[in-house]
């Protein structure tokens, strides 16, 4: 987790080179509306300075947190139940696997129909999207508990509940963590998509989050530089959240630090 200056410089080399080529090409071509690094920086300054972008990001982050929390609260217990009982798995797995390939954006019309175009629909979409990676990884983690550890717990007379708490969950934790990280990633793709679509229906407005902001710049004012600023903002926030989850997992699993 420690960032070393050398690694940082090495990692930044390729992106910086690409940005330089982009700027040079854009200036040579001289097209008015085309996004250019210099124009994007200017747009970013405006959007951040006005407070519009931070507000939209905060709105989206709250929705992502809400949906992500709902997803984790459902997916982890269900995943543990499926992973420790083949009967439960046989009962639930067909349902999970038949919904899993259906993209969150495809269930958006239903969410809007039932929950309206507000925050609850956005949270539902995020929860739907994040649920699957968390549940699938939790099941895998619970199924991959080394049998000898379960036998050891049995010979010490542990009850089923105690074994779940003290053996299955710690053993599955790395896998659950992977599910949470992937879930957080898809939560972001889902929220942007959901806000884009909700934005289309609501026709703009101030409470749509970063996705709606992008839709407005796309459909109404055609400000491509601002859209790129939004993309970058989402990327940075999602990156920071992933790092936060990784840090929390490392704290929760001191034995895995080598």
């Amino acid at each position, binding site marked *: 987790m420690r960032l070393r200056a050398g690694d940082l410089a090495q990692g930044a080399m390729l992106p910086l080179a690409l940005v330089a080529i982009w700027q040079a090409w854009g200036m040579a071509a001289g097209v008015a509306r085309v996004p250019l690094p210099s124009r994007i920086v200017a747009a970013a300054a405006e959007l951040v300075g006005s407070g519009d972008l931070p507000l939209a990001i905060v709105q989206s982050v709250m929705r992502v947190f809400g949906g992500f929390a709902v997803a984790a609260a459902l997916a982890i217990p269900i995943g543990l139940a499926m992973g420790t009982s083949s009967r439960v798995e046989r009962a639930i797995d067909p349902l999970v696997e038949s919904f899993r390939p259906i993209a969150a954006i495809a269930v958006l019309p239903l969410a809007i129909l039932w929950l309206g175009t507000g925050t609850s629909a956005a949270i539902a979409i995020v929860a739907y999207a994040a649920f699957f990676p968390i549940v699938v990884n939790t099941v895998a983690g619970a199924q991959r508990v*080394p049998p*000898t*550890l379960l*036998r*050891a*717990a*049995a*010979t*010490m*007379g*542990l009850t089923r509940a*105690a074994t779940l*708490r*003290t*053996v299955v969950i*710690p*053993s599955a*934790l790395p896998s659950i963590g992977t599910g949470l990280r992937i879930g957080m990633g898809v939560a972001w793709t889902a929220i942007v998509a959901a806000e884009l679509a909700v934005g289309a229906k609501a026709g703009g407005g101030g409470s749509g989050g970063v996705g709606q902001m992008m839709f407005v710049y796309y459909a109404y004012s055609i400000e491509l530089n601002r859209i790129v600023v939004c993309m970058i903002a989402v990327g940075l926030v999602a990156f920071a959240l992933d790092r936060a989850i990784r840090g929390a997992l490392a704290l929760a*699993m*001191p*034995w895995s630090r*080598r």
Partner: protein
Amino acid sequence: MSAPKLVVERVGKRFDVDGQGSTVAIEDLSLDVREGEFLSIVGPSGCGKTTVLNLLAGLETPTTGRVAIDGRAITGPAPERGVMFQDYALFPWQTVEGNVGFGLMHGPAGDGMSDAARAERVRHCIDLVGLAGSERKYPHQLSGGMRQRTALARLMALEPQVLLMDEPLAALDAQTRIILQGELLRIWGQERPAAERRTVVFITHAIDEAVFLADRVAVMTSHPGRLKALIDVPLPRPRDDSTRATPQFQALAQQIWGLIRDEAYRATVT
């Protein structure tokens, strides 16, 4: 002589192989283990010695016959019969301390004990196996010998009536093995009177190890697993490194080797 601690009576164990009938792991095996006795079971791989241990542990149930402790049928695992596994089965997310105290913290063995009493028991067991100073280390930070010691301390912390050990020293190098064989006898209490010792069933494929440790050696043969002979080991206790050099030790090891040599040889060419 008092009633045996453990009884294995005409036990057969059959494992179903997916859609292809079944294999017989053990056939018609009878064996008594006396209270306070150290019994070794040796035999070539595939002779079902681990299955015998799992039956005594209650991790498996016999297909025919019965296994019992103090006259009661064994129907499942219980902390009165502690198990030490071949791969140690330490919990990687627990420190040495956490592993040793695991059964006391989360299982019935610690019921009714105060936190101080639990901590004291853990402390004592860690000292007993010579791991003082490593309490806060995780298993991946330990050598093979230290893991083995941790597993032994965890077993002792439960204060089981019966210690079931499945090739606990098999993964160690030869020198560490010899040292830990001596330690094991010390911890078991070979210097105390026989009445104060715990009952041990010790699985191994090493004949010298079986003879060095045990009061009796059960020799098994494979396909199907059967008891071939029960050999008394009248070597005086306490035993130490000089024991291995005695003619009596050598003769016993030779005798047992003679019983399994043909089969062990066949196993290397098939």
